């Protein structure tokens, strides 16, 4: 039997955007991430899956040094963004986080107007000089986040007045506004209904043309839907990473197989 005509050729790994080597994370005495090595391709969606407490969110937060804000947290090893070590002492974490934006599980708009939610980042990073430029960034960010048509007539209204799904897209627009290269998403849809989830997933698919996206999700179906590559974490170890298609149809490791098929004891 020759190859089935419907067989989709495995997605080629794009150029490496982030490269992590021998990464260890400790919370006090707890060894939370154990010797993780991973390459994350640029302009593609990489999904991190695994059971609660497996370290996927912890590892995600290493990628823009969000763990620096936790006192007892210690990160070892190398994480390079475009070949530059992000843990180098000369790197300003605030600048890094402008390059590597983040969207969280619960939508967290600032208690400000929709306009100011988006304008905040460009303002503090000094990206604009004129009001017209700022207007332009606000409009284009909201357009890219697929929210413009829903909010263009109420930009002065409070961001918190939007629905949950709209708030999450507002947070994505806010992340986009500072022109990041990477967007980290930590369970961005777990508080959203299926329609709002679909809109965010559609948005993720559009954003990957211009951004490198890493998404942590508890929903395997979501990982299967949105990502090109999937990494499975278990007990602080990166068990397996591969093309999403392979991970969900024919994973190599027994632990991955048990997890994706719902056999975890």
């Amino acid at each position, binding site marked *: *039997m*020759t*190859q*089935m005509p419907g067989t989709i050729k495995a997605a080629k790994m794009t150029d490496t955007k982030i490269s992590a080597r021998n990464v260890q994370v400790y919370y006090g005495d707890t060894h939370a991430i154990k010797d993780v090595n991973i390459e994350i391709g640029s302009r593609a969606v990489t999904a991190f899956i695994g059971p609660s407490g497996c370290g996927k969110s912890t590892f995600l937060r290493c990628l823009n040094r969000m763990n620096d804000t936790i006192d007892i947290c210690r990160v070892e090893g190398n994480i390079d963004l475009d070949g530059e070590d992000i843990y180098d002492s000369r790197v300003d974490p605030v600048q890094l986080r402008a390059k590597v934006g983040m969207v969280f599980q619960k939508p967290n708009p600032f208690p400000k107007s929709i306009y100011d939610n988006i304008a905040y980042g460009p303002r503090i990073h000094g990206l604009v000089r004129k009001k017209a430029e700022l207007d332009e960034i606000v409009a284009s960010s909201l357009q890219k986040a697929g929210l413009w048509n829903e909010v263009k007539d109420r930009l002065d209204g409070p961001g918190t007045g939007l629905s949950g799904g709209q708030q999450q897209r507002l947070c994505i627009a806010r992340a986009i506004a500072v022109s990041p290269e990477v967007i980290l998403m930590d369970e961005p849809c777990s508080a959203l209904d299926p329609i709002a989830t679909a809109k965010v997933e559609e948005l993720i698919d559009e954003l990957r043309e211009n951004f490198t996206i890493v998404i942590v999700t508890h929903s*395997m*179906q979501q990982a*299967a839907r949105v990502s090109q590559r999937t990494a499975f974490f278990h007990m602080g170890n990166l068990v397996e990473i591969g093309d999403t298609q392979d991970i*969900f*149809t*024919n*994973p190599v490791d027994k632990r*991955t*197989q*048990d997890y*994706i*098929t*719902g*056999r*975890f*004891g």
Partner: protein
Amino acid sequence: MTEHTVTAYDQELTAVAGRIAEMGGLAETLITDSVTALMTQDLELAHRSIAQDARLDELLLDIEMRNVNIIARRQPMGQDLREIMATGRIANDLERVGDLAKNVAKRVIAMDSGVKSKTLAIGLEHMVELTQAQLKAVLDAYTRRNAEEARLVRERDSEVDAIYTSLFRELLTYMMEDPRHITQCAHLLFCAKNIERIGDHATNIAENVYYMVTGDRLTDERPKVDETGAEGGLDR
């Protein structure tokens, strides 16, 4: 295999597997009965065989419905997904095996008798035995989730093809020797073709079992021994 956290999911997959086993058993019986009807000129058995086929059709629909349900409600992944895809196709093959066996039984009725000359039947009997063994082996490979056994079944299909080719020539010779044999031999030729097709379905099942177990496809081309048609068999 470890069990799913959700017990009902296991039960649903087991129910499908059970129905595949039932289809396999039925298909085997149907072949035995229709060939016996052919050899012993038993018209009544031929009629019974034809009636048995309905249950196979019913089981195929039942399996398809169950698989659609599992896909909709459980979103199977990994080996479960492969199993669902494979069982759907295996059920299809078994239903076709039933149709082909039924066709042999129908011929017994059309001929208004079975094989009158024992000499003519010997070659066919041998071919049936081999095909039956193939089907049994592949059903065992399915039940045991054994990829290697499945691969061997697929390799042995060329033996069935070889017998078919020699049987074809033998029957042609009889027809040339005595034109009164033509009707009998023409029917037998179709019967032989049906049996050969059953062998092909056993091969399809073997390929699906292999995929179901390993996630890989058997890709290497097997040698074709069937030389009765221009390119590897007449009606492909």
